[in-house]
């Protein structure tokens, strides 16, 4: 690395705080990091899905069963039927772990369905508004503005209180509250793509609206939509929990993580686990989606990679 120098110049060591090799190693690590940050959350979400499907079956979970002797037992207690409740039991003697996995079922189902409905509606609106512009854009985006005037949770509360409780209603409510995010992201991506020369090249070929929207614009929107969908999945799950916590979510008898936490608040001092553990389970799931969303964004947008 040291160059042979003309004799009149005294050799001084070159002070380089970080060499390019070091920086590249860091970049490589960051790139490997992105892959890990994509794989690990997917595994975690997968575990939740498996748990949500199998655990309630294995435990023979019945929301209506009450076992008074087994009430409010701390984690690790052996129950009257001989099984070990390693996360403890709740105020009616239900095994907390089984109940949490049942709650995860609700969370995942609500999250996935909402994503599909809100995503379909939002992406369609975003594509139409962005592609056609003009009055169509104005009308659709003003509707979105009005929608945004209601904090998502507020709108959900209002709708849920009117529609009543029930899983379908929660999905409807959360879909209505969340389509705007998809619409806005899709629209801004379409606007960014629209004036790119390759889209103009499509128009110059004489491509019709359908071709442009479906074959040119939509594929270009997939990455940001995927990122938003991942993050929104977490948001929707949190919103469902909040609604259930407030008592406008799942009907009584359906154990959602939110309603379990709510039920536990009455026993905070005597049985801390009922409220805290489902919260951690919920946070773990949402965190996994958040990390995944971040990683996907880094993966799809190399300009932000390492930034």
């Amino acid at each position: 690395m040291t160059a042979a120098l003309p004799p009149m110049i005294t050799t001084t060591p070159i002070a380089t705080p970080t060499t390019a090799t070091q920086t590249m190693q860091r970049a490589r690590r960051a790139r490997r990091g992105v892959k890990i940050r994509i794989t690990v959350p997917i595994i975690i979400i997968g575990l939740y899905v498996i748990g949500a499907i199998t655990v309630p079956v294995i435990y023979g979970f019945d929301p209506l069963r009450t076992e008074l002797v087994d009430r409010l037992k701390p984690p690790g207690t052996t129950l009257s039927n001989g099984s070990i409740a390693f996360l403890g039991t709740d105020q009616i003697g239900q095994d907390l772990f089984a109940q949490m996995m049942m709650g995860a079922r609700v969370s995942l189902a609500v999250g996935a369905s909402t994503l599909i409905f809100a995503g379909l509606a939002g992406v369609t609106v975003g594509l139409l508004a962005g592609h056609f512009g003009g009055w169509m854009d104005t009308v659709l985006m003003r509707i979105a503005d009005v929608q945004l005037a209601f904090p998502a949770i507020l709108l959900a509360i209002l709708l849920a209180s009117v529609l009543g409780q029930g899983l379908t209603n929660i999905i409807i409510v959360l879909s209505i509250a969340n389509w705007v995010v998809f619409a806005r992201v899709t629209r801004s991506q379409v606007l960014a793509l629209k004036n790119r020369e390759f889209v103009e090249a499509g128009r110059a070929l004489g491509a019709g609206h359908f071709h442009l929207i479906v074959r040119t614009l939509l594929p270009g929107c997939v990455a940001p939509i995927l990122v938003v969908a991942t993050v929104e999945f977490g948001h929707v799950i949190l919103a469902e929990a909040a609604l259930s916590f407030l008592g406008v979510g799942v009907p009584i008898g359906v154990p959602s993580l939110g309603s379990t936490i709510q039920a536990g608040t009455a026993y905070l001092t005597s049985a801390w686990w009922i409220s805290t553990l489902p919260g951690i389970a919920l946070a773990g799931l949402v965190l996994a989606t958040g990390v995944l969303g971040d990683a996907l964004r880094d993966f799809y947008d190399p300009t932000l990679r390492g930034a």
Partner: protein
Amino acid sequence: MLGFVARRLLLAVFVLWGAVTVVFVVVRLVPADPALLMAGETATPEQLAALRAEMGLDQPLIAQYLQYVGNTLTGDFGRSYTQFVPAMDLIAQVLPNTALLALLACLLAVGVSFPLGLLAALRVNRFSDRAVTTLSLTTQSLPGFWIGIVLMLVFSRQLGWLPSAGLDSPQSLILPTITLALPFIAILTRMVRSGLIEVMGEGYITTARSKGLSERTVIFPHAIRNALIPVVTLVGLEFGTLLGGAVITETVFSFPGIGRLLVFSIGVRDYATVQACVVVIAVAFVLVNLFVDLLYGFLDPRVRNSR
């Protein structure tokens, strides 16, 4: 600038009208009879008829709507059915509390997230950046109500340092403020970080450096002033999340605010108060965003000078 202000004002008025209309549509056009919903299943036909007359439900829909808009303009949302006072009076009692809570949470969030975001942005991919981003992502994944419950469990039930409910002393504000601010801090920190990282790659930052300015001067004011512009807009939009969070926080801490009033009113089917609460919160959101838009114009001369 004048055109910009006028356009923003017009949009705000439109959004408000839209929000008020949505509330009307949601409450009046649901398949259920609002009078029945309000009076409950046990009401006699005479009671129902009286209620319908009082609510104007016997008039044509368009008349109902005009009446409703007119009333809304004067702040008349009708009488609370449980407390027998105008709904607006109930709100007037608790609104200052919520405003204070929201303001404190905002100040706390801005005060904490700006230094954190700055720190992370200036040490991209180093330890402090990773720590800040991990922490904020985790905080964002935690359900707000659960944070409240855990804080309450630790600081009032276990340690007994702070009151757990109500609003009797300034100390009562501490836990709700933190609960409300935490998710906001997380979001804001990430925004400040990414905004600043983006700005640090701009040409004018290179120019500032080529002027031999110290890195400190390059950041204050050259980078920060530009980074603030998008952050301010996002703060406005996220203010809705904050208001939604207030509903939950107030419920957890039995804090006498508009959020708890809303949840309580839903529980007792007091639709006049529910409507009033929703409209007031939407108005607050629209006003805050109007203010943010105007601030945006102040911060960015390009917007100010555009037609």
